[in-house]
């Protein structure tokens, strides 16, 4: 038992707690909404989490290094628009090329952020507040305020949101969701088991110590931003596939949502701790709340946001209270075995 407790690291613990809270939310809503727990709920939430989740992962990478990227929404919008534009002009572009185009553009924008933050030593919040506006301006200028129309997009792209990898009765695992899982597992492995991943944590945990230990802080932070940009690019591609019509406001608001997902998922906003699983669970939590509130007939359109705010707050607070007790308990148990 104690050994188990000892193995249960705080971040694992937090993921469990979050999972528990998600379960509570599910149970609550299934009692107040008719036909709530069905395949459709899963399909819906999983597909929209696929988009938010990938973005939240990128955001997490940056937050871990004690930075923040507020430009992700604009990056998503820009890539979605840019790739959409090219695909509508040239329907021959293959899926793989389109995806790499999206990732590449995202990475490019991310590297601009990263360069300014890491090498020019400008606080991330300032840089990304700036580029949030800048990238959106670029989008408007580039697009000349026109809309990407679904009509002009190639068929494979429009069909993409409907493609299933696995199907069980009416439960579908969509390709996009599977894609997200791949990204999640990849980055979880990188963060937990590679020395680059650990250094990402180290830099965020104590930048001064990292410098004294001779880590290339600047390169690590730069890489985090580039990866975040690349993931935002991927998100942009998924966004394009899902929504088809891309206007100049595409993706705005995603920056705060991705930060919220990461933070609800237990990623410390001051860097150094948190996990990819956590961030994705955070995205699930927020999305589930939103989706459920939309469906709750008793809640009028106008009450929804007010409820959402309160629910996010209480879930984070519950999480932090439970975590505190758990942590103390663990400390007590494990320290007894020690002495």
């Amino acid at each position: 038992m104690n050994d188990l407790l000892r193995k249960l690291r705080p971040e694992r613990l937090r993921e469990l707690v979050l999972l528990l809270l998600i379960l509570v939310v599910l149970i609550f809503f299934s009692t107040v909404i008719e036909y709530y727990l069905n395949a459709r709920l899963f399909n819906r939430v999983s597909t929209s989490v696929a988009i938010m989740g990938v973005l939240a992962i990128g955001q997490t990478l940056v937050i871990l290094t004690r930075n923040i990227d507020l430009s992700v929404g604009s990056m998503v919008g820009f890539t979605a628009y840019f790739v959409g534009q090219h695909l509508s002009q040239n329907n021959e572009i293959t899926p793989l090329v389109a995806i790499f185009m999206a990732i590449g553009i995202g990475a490019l924008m991310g590297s601009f952020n990263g360069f300014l933050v890491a090498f020019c030593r400008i606080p991330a919040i300032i840089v990304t507040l700036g580029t949030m506006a800048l990238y959106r301006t670029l989008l408007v200028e580039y697009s000349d305020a026109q809309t990407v129309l679904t009509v002009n997009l190639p068929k494979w792209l429009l069909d993409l949101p409907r493609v299933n990898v696995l199907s069980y009765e009416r439960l579908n695992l969509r390709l996009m969701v599977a894609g997200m899982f791949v990204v999640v597992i990849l980055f979880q492995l990188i963060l937990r088991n590679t020395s680059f991943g650990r250094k990402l944590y180290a830099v965020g945990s104590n930048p001064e110590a990292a410098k004294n230990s001779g880590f290339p802080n600047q390169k690590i932070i730069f890489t985090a931003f580039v990866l975040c940009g690349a993931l935002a690019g991927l998100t942009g591609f998924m966004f394009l596939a899902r929504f088809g019509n891309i206007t100049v406001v595409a993706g705005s608001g995603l920056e705060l949502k991705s930060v919220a997902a990461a933070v609800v998922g237990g990623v410390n906003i001051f860097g150094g701790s948190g996990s990819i699983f956590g961030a994705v669970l955070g995205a699930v939590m927020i999305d589930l709340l939103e989706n459920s509130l939309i469906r709750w007939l008793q809640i009028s359109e106008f009450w929804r946001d007010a409820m959402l705010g309160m629910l996010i707050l209480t879930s984070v607070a519950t999480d932090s209270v439970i975590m505190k007790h758990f942590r103390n308990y663990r400390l007590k148990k494990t320290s007894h075995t020690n002495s």
Partner: protein
Amino acid sequence: MTLKTSNQPVLEVLNTSKRFDMTQALEDVSLKMYPGEIHALVGENGAGKSTLIKILTGLQQADQGELRLSGTPVKISNSQEAQAYGIAAIYQEPLLFPDLDVAENIFISHRDQGFFVRWDKMYKEAENILNDLGVRIDVQNSASGLTLAAQQAVEIAKAISLDVRVLIMDEPTASLSDHEVKQLFRTAKQLKQEKNVALLFISHRLEEVFEIADRITVLRDGKHISTRPISTVTKESLVREMVGREVNQFYATRKTREDGKRICSVKNLSKVSTFSNISFELHEGEILGFAGLVGSRRTDVGMAMFGINPADSGSIELEDKIVKINSPQTAKKLGIAYMTEDRHQLGLAMPMSVTSNITLPSLSRYLSRFGLIKREKEKKTANEFKNRLQIKTPSLEQEVGKLSGGNQQKVMFSKWLNTQPKIIILDEPTRGIDVGAKAEVHSMIQELAENGLSIICISSDLPEVLAMSDRILIMREGRQMGILASREATQESVMSLAMGQKMGLS
């Protein structure tokens, strides 16, 4: 001890100077380090020791001077390069990654770690290294909750686990107690003999210097004064060279005095999984020492009495009234002051001025009716303390972070004395303070006690506790092992209690 000084120094510092805007920290200093030798570096606070080390590891750049590694000139511009040359250092202030676990902290800067992290191997090796050092810390716990001593231990483990040619230790023992110091020295000697490492060792505890060093270099005011083999140095001559004058660095023996009025009585103070059943009385003008090994939870008792992490059960009586202390504000109002051992993280606001730091806890006394700060009054107080404690600073507006460690300690002292407390809890009060200043601090503590202040003095420096205290409370793993009056307390009796022989309350 044989001196096997090979003729080729592994690391040489030549004619190095460094100036900070107002202070000449180093002036034309040269130093040679030989493999298989422990070289001690001593000097007063602010003599430039830490600065020299930072230059060796590339954390700071010298204004002029040269570094030679095995005879060839090198330029070290960051610590990664220093590591590549086989130079590792433990800095005066431990700098860990609070979110990573202990084992990772030890191994993360290893260059040979490879691309993938092997967790099991890492945990096992970390445990071994810490065991060798005689420290018991759970290597899978995060480093965030560690006391300063534990942090220091982790830093040491980190440095010795690296494969190095030159190992520099800036006051590694400052917050360690005898037991751990012995282990550390054993390890250091091993490194010297088996791996032929050159060690540079800084300490203000001269006994230690004599115990371990082969050669000794004295710095004063940034200048090189002397470098001699240890056999040609005596304690008196060393102190004279460091301070530039005669100092009586032997502890003024405590005058025995009749018990004053009882100020405070603590009964069965306990905190779950931290400490239990701590009971003692404190009298007016008394100095109560707290002794124990690292991690014996003395700090936790101090913090509980100051209301930072209040105890869950037991009582504290002040002047015969039971009080409930659940926040530092209450403690401060009741006349309790607590001077933390961790001045960097908890003690001082480093970017603020000396003055602002000194008046911080008592700022309400410097406010006019509309809450405006009376700057003149503030300055006057700061100046008084500067003179009384001889704080070495170019100006009272200087950022505290730019003072040397010892002077920072004095600022922290001033800050709490200025609250005019009835009881002051000193946690490692002389940590990082040089001999001269230490004598001053000791006589200051005595004087304060004479004037009726009750003092709890937590210290890992055993001779200090023995000499200063009227009575000594000894702790082990959160339990109170006994209280000894100064006449019955000896190095041996205190140590045996601290190591685990229980005795009846005296």
